[in-house]
């Protein structure tokens, strides 16, 4: 079996996390911000799985399941709110919010 060094996995997770964070900061569309946050969450999930593999415990994977569940709950509630926002304003641009980004 080929084993991937743990540093590589963590590095990849860190890169993914930074990409997601960049998306959150740079994007204007709420949907894309939400997508970027999902990327960040999954980066954390990868880091957890890698950590679990390092210590040969199932905990890391269990945390990943929790992250998945939480992301689903968040998206369910979040999309409903975003839909309402779209109904009110006809746009998904966060900068259009009252007072803009502070």
């Amino acid at each position, binding site marked *: 079996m080929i084993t991937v060094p*743990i540093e590589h996995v*963590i590095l990849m*997770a860190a890169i993914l*996390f930074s990409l*997601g*964070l960049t998306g*959150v900061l740079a994007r204007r569309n*709420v949907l894309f*911000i*939400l997508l970027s*946050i999902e990327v*960040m*969450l999954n*980066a*954390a*999930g990868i*880091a*957890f799985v*890698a*950590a*679990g593999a*390092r*210590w040969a*415990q199932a*905990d*890391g994977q*269990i*945390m990943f399941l*929790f*992250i998945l569940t*939480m992301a689903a*709950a*968040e998206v369910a*509630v*979040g999309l409903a*709110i*975003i839909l*309402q*926002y779209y109904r*009110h*304003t006809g746009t998904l641009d*966060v900068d259009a*919010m*009252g*007072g803009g*980004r*502070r």
Partner: protein
Amino acid sequence: MVRGDFFILLPLIITGGAAVAVMLLISFRRSHLATATVTLVALGAAVISVICVAAAAPRQASALLILDSYALFYMGLIFAAGCAVTMIAYDYFERQTDHREEFYLLLLLATLGSAVLVSSNHFASLFLGLEILSVSLYALIAFHRERLPSVEAGVRYLILAAASSAFLLFGMALIYLERGDMTFFRSTQIASGVPAWSPLLLAGTALLIVGIGFKLALVPFHMWTPDIYEGAPPPATAFIASVSKGAAFVLLLRYVTLFGLHSGSVQSAAIAAIAVASMFFGNLLALREEKVRRVLAYSSIAHMGYLLVAILAAGPLAAVAAGYYLVAYFTSIIGSFGIISVREGREGGGDAVSDYRGYAWRHPWLGGAFTAMLLSLAGIPITAGFVGKFYLLAAGLESSLRLLVVVLVASSAIGLFYYLRIIITLYGPPEAERQGAAITPAVSLAGGVALTALTFLLIWFGAYPAPLLRLIQAMVGG
């Protein structure tokens, strides 16, 4: 699971069971009064169960939760605050007709999440508690879906809370990677084999602090807080300002106490910088705000900055000071938003400071209560806020954090200005066209009871702090 575990978890089981019961109640009979009553009774029962269970503490219930006297004290506080918010919400939603029952369901869930958070002893329970709290809060904040500011506040909180959860999770993953264990306790023991502060641990802790900093709305992470406080329904704002922040703070305090912040380390310097910035900017930015809710939002940022002094001071006195300050802060901030909520539910009208002109003449009791709450937030003697701030100062001086203590005093002095400005407006000459508005009853029974109780507690804790102090020393100081 042993029987003892079930007993000690009774407060959590009651709250969780009540959430399911309320959900079923809503499905079969939509009644505002019945839903609110069930919620109130359940939260009251949870408070009582905390007292019953206290004898069996401390006990570790599975690897995830620890029910020690520290956790139980704050659990009791959270449930009591939940009761107060329920009563205020009943008053607020009495005049509205649409889908108001779900508010109590979400409130119960958010309270459950906070209770799990303060008793968590493991990253998994921390995460679960935090998410139950946050996801309920998204819906609570955007509850007025027909009002754009409320929905906007919901979107803002969604982005903020979800991003901060991601930071928190990544931090937890890094710490787990280094320590090989996710519980809070054993990590400290294992630490002998692992280098005390490796780069990964440092990075993990930094990410953790960023995540919690967002939840507490500390200064570099405070953007949007005023917008959220302004847009959310007032009972929901009361809940975010008190329970949600309080639970995150209690968790941070426990974590820092267990792992210890090496004095003079990068971390304690960073936290000190955050504390100073929060105290100063919170109070300074509040000065230029014209809306009462935004003023209170900045004031809550400053209050979290004060509380960080307790975290840095560390030690039994600091724990007691934090406990007292949190009780005082909960009472005053729930009371303040309670009065805002009562006023908005009945009179409507703007939220600007000038809209409150002459309010105390129209409603002397509510005006008086609001004055007491604001004085307590400002830390004026014979209110609970003064005693809390006094102990914070004492704790800070004991650990010789001179700079922080000076900043605390100076920024509190700045804070006096904006609290006094609101109070003076309350007693200003009433506008002529508004005088006719005083005919409606000022407040319903539930709201009245809640506000009276809060005001009474505020003055009692301020004038005669000994009993509460003894309780806190017994529960938290040990």
